[in-house]
């Protein structure tokens, strides 16, 4: 491997950092072990470090390094197993190995290559040493060593002799130039800089009001420094989206191979920078969406040819900044989404009634895909179809204030558009006035400023059936008046008309304002929840004079004024309407729980109302259950769901009032304080609620009533979710390996395959993870500290609930662990650490065949 592909550079960088860290620890440990040659733990640690370096070199294809470390490892394993005594020459040899390793790493860092020095002499000496009969370790060993290189004893005995050589190896830039800083600190810096920017703006304002040369000079300086500081701090938090995208070619390739498809991946805008936290948050959704496109979108080559397309499908990722937001598009030229099938699936799942299905528009139907538990896959594979997907994608994106949109044309493909706002950003904006108020328009949306002067200025804006338009260089530009959009008093008819030309999405419009001031750097601050619903504002900022100004949302203004079509919005409103549609014109059960006086549940979801004596309540699986009609009915206290953390009722009523909810063959009992009434009313949900467990509030029987979000109530019932393998539960895998780097590699593979991964770096951590949650399988390297992975195996065999969890051993390329031997040792299977495909196949087999049924988490309802 002579050159490293760009996407691997990141991996190499990580490898370098980890290796340097390991090597400096090794130096200390070797010095330490010279004093205590019998310290087994220390020896084991040294062995592991060398072993880790060797393993990752092998994976990255650094053969020289692998050879050196492999020989050193052999020697160390003999030491560890007591076949050989540790003596100074041996330590020197190992130290020499460490130095050689450092040199090679420096060369990799500098040139990406291992360099011309193959260290054959050292490798040979290490090999010879390892081959020596263990029975005569000292004398002969030393002799041969001395024969091979006369310098050796000197190397160890006199430190100054080693100095020149060491200094020849330039201390690593990678390790020295990077320090790890907590994100919390960066956030804090960012906040402080935001404050500084505002203060700077205020100072600049003072400066313009005063004629003081000294103040002028100082404030200019302050201005410059602040700008640079701001830029620097912003940069510390920004990362290119390539951080997420780099792993996608591999995902696509693997998917294509396993599905027998041909897929070309095109990435546009990989250098688009995003805030660190945003990058983190979109990682999983991106992988999900790309896998979806590969799996469901792009057809098999022969199907594509029949449809008149090229056999090779195309998947395009695009990222760009627009209007203070980052837009990400994932589009494929596949089959598109079959809307009829979506509806059918939704009906099968009981999400949709046939009557509603008929009324649903295509767009609304498409949005069904975002509902929890919805899966289009015909069968559950290890690739997709586990019913976790688009709803998770949506909730992830919405959590960071983003929006997901889906567009699909049958036969032509599917496009998912994600918009993520940059709430943290400091952006340039144009300050305008309208109706006596100041507003800021983000500079990115701004195309040009137009000023119409003279008597005829108003006339230059013409009207078509009352709709104002402006002739701009021969084409008509729709025009809106900001005063009208915001319901402000229009200024007395001015002599001149100021208009800003704005761009939203791919359309343009003119916005007439009273006055145009200047451009400024502004800090975007979010609006309080009371104002979140106003689509015309993107946020607020603090101006130089300390007053607050609102930032206009150009898209929202365009839509509100009607110059941009609202199709977008309507569709979304319709979706919201639909999700809440279940409580319209329905019979409602009214009840009371905790401090919620009046709660409503659609009666159609209620199976029965029951009373259970306190004595009938039993505890199982960490929750309350009751025996009910020969079944075990999980109970969930509505009070606990709505008011988590509130004190328990001192004297719970006896009997308990329970509402039994049914959905298909699943049931759950919801404990309420009191059942009030059944109402039949036309309901409009007036206000959505952010509170957990509530959909929103509306008026029922002339009183304000809160509507329960049964999904959340149901999710609170642990046993329901577990028993039926509900939403969001995947197979959970423990990755146990001493090297964080290896764990990262393995984890990446497992994450992509949709497993939930927990990690452990040593035996203690592994046991803790096993205790913390039910696991479907364990994937382990062979050298789990402190005493190897066998210790974990025996620990697991000792516990009845752990002994059936399959353990997959992962070996390095050079370790000669064969599957039969691994089986004998108690592993279920054995794979190479760096053959991810084989690992995933093996794991899929193990986790499905060997997992005990109690934690089988494949959801029901996927059989078809």
């Amino acid at each position, binding site marked *: 491997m002579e050159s490293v592909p760009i996407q691997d550079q990141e991996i190499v960088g990580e490898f370098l950092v980890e290796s340097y860290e390991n090597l400096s620890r090794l130096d200390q440990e070797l010095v330490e072990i010279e004093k205590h040659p019998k310290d087994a733990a220390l020896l084991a640690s040294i062995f592991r470090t060398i072993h880790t370096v060797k393993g990752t070199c092998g994976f990255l294809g650094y053969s020289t390094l692998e050879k050196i470390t492999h020989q050193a490892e052999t020697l160390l394993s003999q030491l560890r197993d007591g076949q050989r005594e540790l003596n100074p020459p041996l330590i020197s040899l190992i130290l020499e190995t460490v130095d050689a390793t450092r040199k090679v790493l420096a060369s990799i860092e500098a040139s990406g290559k291992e360099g011309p020095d193959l260290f054959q002499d050292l490798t040979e000496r290490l090999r010879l040493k390892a081959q020596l009969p263990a029975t005569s370790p000292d004398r002969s060993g030393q002799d041969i060593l001395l024969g091979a290189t006369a310098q050796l004893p000197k190397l160890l005995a006199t430190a100054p002799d080693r100095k020149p050589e060491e200094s020849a190896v330039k201390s690593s830039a990678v390790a020295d130039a990077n320090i790890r800083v907590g994100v919390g600190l960066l956030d804090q810096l960012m906040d402080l800089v935001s404050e500084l920017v505002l203060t700077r703006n205020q100072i600049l304002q003072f400066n313009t009001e005063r004629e003081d040369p000294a103040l002028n000079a100082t404030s200019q300086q302050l201005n410059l420094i602040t700008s640079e500081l701001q830029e620097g701090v912003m940069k510390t938090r920004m990362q290119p989206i390539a951080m997420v995208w780099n792993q996608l070619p591999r995902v696509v390739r693997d998917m294509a191979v396993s599905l027998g498809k041909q897929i070309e991946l095109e990435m546009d805008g990989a250098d688009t920078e995003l805030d660190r936290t945003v990058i983190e948050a979109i990682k999983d959704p991106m992988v999900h969406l790309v896998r979806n496109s590969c799996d469901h979108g792009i057809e098999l080559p022969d199907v594509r040819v029949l449809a008149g397309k090229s056999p090779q499908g195309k998947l395009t990722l695009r990222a760009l900044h627009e209007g203070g937001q980052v837009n990400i598009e994932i589009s494929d030229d596949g089959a598109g989404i079959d809307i009829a099938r979506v509806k059918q699936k939704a009906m099968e799942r009981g999400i949709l009634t046939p009557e509603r299905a008929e009324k649903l528009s295509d767009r609304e139907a498409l949005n069904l895909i975002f509902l929890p538990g919805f899966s289009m896959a015909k069968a559950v594979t290890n690739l997709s179809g586990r019913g976790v997907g688009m709803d998770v994608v949506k909730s992830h994106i919405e959590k960071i204030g983003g929006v997901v949109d889906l567009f699909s044309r049958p036969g032509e493909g599917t496009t998912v558009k994600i918009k993520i706002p940059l709430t943290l950003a400091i952006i340039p904006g144009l300050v305008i006035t309208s109706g006596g108020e100041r507003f800021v328009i983000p500079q990115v949306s701004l195309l040009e400023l137009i000023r119409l002067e003279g008597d005829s200025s108003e006339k230059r804006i013409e009207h078509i059936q009352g709709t104002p338009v402006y002739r701009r260089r021969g084409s008509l530009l729709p025009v809106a008046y900001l005063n009208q959009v915001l319901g402000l008093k229009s200024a007395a008819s001015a002599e001149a008309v100021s208009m800003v030309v704005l761009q939203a999405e791919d359309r343009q419009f003119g916005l007439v304002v009273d006055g145009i001031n200047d451009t400024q750097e502004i800090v975007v601050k979010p609006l*309080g929840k009371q104002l979140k619903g106003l689509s015309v504002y993107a946020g607020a900022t603090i101006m130089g004079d300390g007053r607050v100004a609102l930032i206009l949302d150009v898209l929202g203004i365009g839509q509100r004024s009607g110059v941009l079509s609202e199709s977008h919005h309507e569709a979304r409103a319709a979706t919201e309407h639909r999700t809440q549609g279940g409580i319209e014109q329905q019979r409602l059960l009214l009840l009371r729980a905790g401090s919620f006086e009046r709660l409503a549940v659609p009666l159609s979801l209620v199976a029965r109302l029951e009373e259970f004596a306190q004595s009938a309540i039993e505890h199982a699986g960490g929750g309350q259950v009751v025996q009910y009609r020969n079944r075990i009915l999980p109970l969930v206290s509505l009070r606990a769901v709505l008011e988590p953390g509130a004190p328990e009722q*001192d004297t719970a009523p006896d009997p308990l009032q329970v509402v039994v909810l049914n959905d298909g063959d699943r049931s759950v009992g919801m404990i309420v304080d009191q059942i009030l009434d059944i109402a039949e009313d036309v309901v409009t949900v007036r206000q*959505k609620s952010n509170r957990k467990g509530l959909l929103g509030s509306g008026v029922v029987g002339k009183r304000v009533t809160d509507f329960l979000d049964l999904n959340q109530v149901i999710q609170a019932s642990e046993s329901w979710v577990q028993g039926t393998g509900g939403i969001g539960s995947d197979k959970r895998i423990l990755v146990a390996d001493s090297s964080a780097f290896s764990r990262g590699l393995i984890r990446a593979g497992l994450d992509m395959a949709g497993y939930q991964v927990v990690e452990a770096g040593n035996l203690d951590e592994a046991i803790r993870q096993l205790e913390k949650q039910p696991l479907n399988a364990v994937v382990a390297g062979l050298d789990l500290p402190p005493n190897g992975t066998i210790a974990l195996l025996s620990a697991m065999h000792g516990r009845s609930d752990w002994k059936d969890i399959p353990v997959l051993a992962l070996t390095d390329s050079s370790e000669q662990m064969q599957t039969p031997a691994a089986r004998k040792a108690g592993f279920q299977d054995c794979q190479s650490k760096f053959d991810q495909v084989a690992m995933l196949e093996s794991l899929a087999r193990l986790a499905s065949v060997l997992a005990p049924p109690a934690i089988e988490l494949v959801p029901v309802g996927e059989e078809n």
Partner: protein
Amino acid sequence: MVATTAILKSQTTQAGRQFCTFFVADLFFGVDVLHVQEVLRVQQITRVPQAPAVVEGLINLRGQIVTAIDMRRRLQLPPRDGDRTPMNIVVRTEDGAGSLLVDEIGDVLDVDAASWEPSPENLDPNARELIRGVYKLKDRLLLVLDTERALDLAVGRAQ
């Protein structure tokens, strides 16, 4: 009803508490001092066109942008006399800080837990939604304002 009020009582009367008190029209309110971030004279307020009527506007609280809610309008009371400038009580809630515009600030009072009672049934429904209960002080009644609900415009809007 009985069960709920009993529980509310047990929650709120565990110990005597301190209340920051204020007036809105002739109503005497209290907010737990622990929920009050600060009390300010009226600030420069930026109006928010198209916002719900109860939103007076936005204020700059040392770099933090806080929404100011007019308590008169929130309680559907007649507007303040033109020459009376309101006071800001900045309260902390789960969703960040919010400011309540009130007529006048009163003292910080220690109240006796035993004097607590749930809000009377016949209270004006607009107010009742936002009141957690009443302390019977010697000379007047102190209404405990539910700040979370007062700042949550979803509450009581349908009335």
